[in-house]
């Protein structure tokens, strides 16, 4: 601290002591002209001292540093979670259900090896095939005939993976009970088996009423996923599926390396309005996603999904070149729909706090 700074502080303190003494005398009804004269002298001396530019400069530097620090923090620090909206055509869709999923209808399949079911806990065939139910690792395959999936139910918590290997669509379900039903029409050639019974080819004819195959998988987490391989002839659309995990990639080799199934699409981040186009095999990572699959089209040669929700991690790009799409706080404030209102509120709060400070400490 400079000598002039110390002198100024001493003068200010001495002036304050004299002012207190003068006030006390005034209250006691005593004369205080001497103190007034002393105060005037102090005021003149304080004015005559050289101004402390360096102190002002230092204070300004500290405030500027803090401003840069906070601005940098706001520039680098991402908001806790972003609203993300994705529309994509893909080879792979993988999600975990927050609510049960129920499909009911008639999903027509190809007549040539259109359906294969595997890893089921229980399988019941029409009595025209066999009255016996198959249990434990049960499987069923239609070699020839007209087939339709009429019902699929997967309980909440179940993970569903759907991936395309044209012309076959693979559905894997794990983690929650899965129930389903398949209808058979006309002449059917099929084979069914289980861990205990070798699959035996058999055939039956369903004239007026379809034959019904019912299957069930208990969904134990440590078990193999129930597997449905099918060749769809028509489209189905699933809507408003609540999920708490979603990915458009698949670990096909089982080595932990996930391959992107994306063919094309767009990602839109709500807070920043940023829209990113996705191209073939772009890596889209959405960590800890919770939201809704608004529409999921499953067609013979196409999977198209449209979903939205919140996620703390949203990035595009391969490892090492990932681009974080979750906006920073700076971008968040910048892209707010009414920024003038926000800054007006900031100025108002600052003014209010400053007024309180003036009231209390002056």
């Amino acid at each position, binding site marked *: 601290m400079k000598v002039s700074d110390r002198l100024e502080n001493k003068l200010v303190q001495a002036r304050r002591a004299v002012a207190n003494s003068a006030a006390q005398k005034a209250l006691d009804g005593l004369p205080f002209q001497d103190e007034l004269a002393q105060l005037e002298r102090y005021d003149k001396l304080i004015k005559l001292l050289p101004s402390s530019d360096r102190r002002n400069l230092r204070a300004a530097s500290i405030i500027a540093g803090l401003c840069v620090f906070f601005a940098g923090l706001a520039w680098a620090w991402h908001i806790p979670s972003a609203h993300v909206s994705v529309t994509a055509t893909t080879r792979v869709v993988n999600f975990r259900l927050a609510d049960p999923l129920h499909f*009911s209808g*008639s999903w027509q399949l190809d007549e040539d090896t259109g359906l294969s079911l595997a890893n089921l806990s229980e399988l*019941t065939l029409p009595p025209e095939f066999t009255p016996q*139910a198959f249990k434990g690792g049960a499987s069923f395959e239609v070699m020839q005939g007209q087939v339709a999936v*009429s019902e699929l139910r997967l309980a909440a918590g179940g993970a569903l993976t759907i991936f395309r290997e044209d012309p076959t669509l693979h559905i894997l379900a794990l983690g929650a009970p899965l129930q389903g039903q398949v209808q058979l029409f006309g002449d059917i050639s099929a084979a069914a088996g289980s861990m205990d019974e070798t699959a035996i080819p058999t055939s039956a004819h369903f004239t007026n*009423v*379809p034959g*019904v195959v019912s299957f*069930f998988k208990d969904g134990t987490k440590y078990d193999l996923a129930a597997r449905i391989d099918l060749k769809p002839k028509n489209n189905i659309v699933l809507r408003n599926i609540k999920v708490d995990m979603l990915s458009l990639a698949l670990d096909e080799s089982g080595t932990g390396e996930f391959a992107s199934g994306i063919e094309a699409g767009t990602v839109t981040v709500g807070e920043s309005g940023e829209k990113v186009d996705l191209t073939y095999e772009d890596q889209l990572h959405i960590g800890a996603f919770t939201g809704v699959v608004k529409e999921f089209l499953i067609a013979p040669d196409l999977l198209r999904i449209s979903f939205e929700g919140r996620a703390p991690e949203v990035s595009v790009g391969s490892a090492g070149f990932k681009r974080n799409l979750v906006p920073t706080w700076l971008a968040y404030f910048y892209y707010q729909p009414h920024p003038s209102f926000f800054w007006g509120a900031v100025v108002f709060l600052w003014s209010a706090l400053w007024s309180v400070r003036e009231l209390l400490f002056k």
Partner: protein
Amino acid sequence: MSTASTPILGIILAVVVMVPPEAIAQDQQKCASLQPVAGASGYKLRPGDVRCEGFYQSPVSGARVELFSLTSGALNYDLQSDQVLYVTSPDVSDLDAGKARTVSVQARALPLEKYYRMDAAVFSGSSLAWPMSAVLTPERLAPDAIGVVAWVEQDGKLIFVPVAVSPTKPRPVTELVAAVFRSSVDLNQFQWRVRPKGSTAQALEWISLGASGSSLRAGRPLRFSFELTKGFTVLEIAARAVNSDNWQTPTFAIFRP
């Protein structure tokens, strides 16, 4: 008893006294998330044997064939003279389904756009007293206007258990089962068949309801009865709506001890 434990016991006692009996009962029977209608007939927890009963606002539902009633014998009571219905469950302890060995019971009104429901749970092998004065008598819900189903859940699957519903006193279940289905759309075909699960007998023929060539109107009860053998039975339904190529083929697992 130490003096330190006395205030704790006092707090516990105060909490027990403050918790209303309805809350304890609700713990045993949770009412479904339905929007009840206003007034005394609204769907709510009822006193007596724990059950939720009443009318509710229409939910959105798809066009489908539903199982409305599966009872041991047909429902039969008199709205003028009878006071209480008894729902008797067979002993299903052989199923080993669930820790409490309770059977869920649900009653619904058959006419379309009449949204009445009663949900209860009855212990396996015992009876539930269902006072008619709460809703059935004031709302004139006759035996042909309601259906009752009961089930246990095993490994995430529903296994239906026909219960006996009788006035005056509990009645044991018998092998004769009355089934009632309802479709929310007009049908041009409704067929059914039952077979013991795992039976090696030849495949049974389908039995049709309604005259050939005429349609079955939406909301009309589709009634039939059959004899139930001991053990598991599979009830298969095949229904097709008018002007539709799609079949609805629900199947039901039924258990009789």
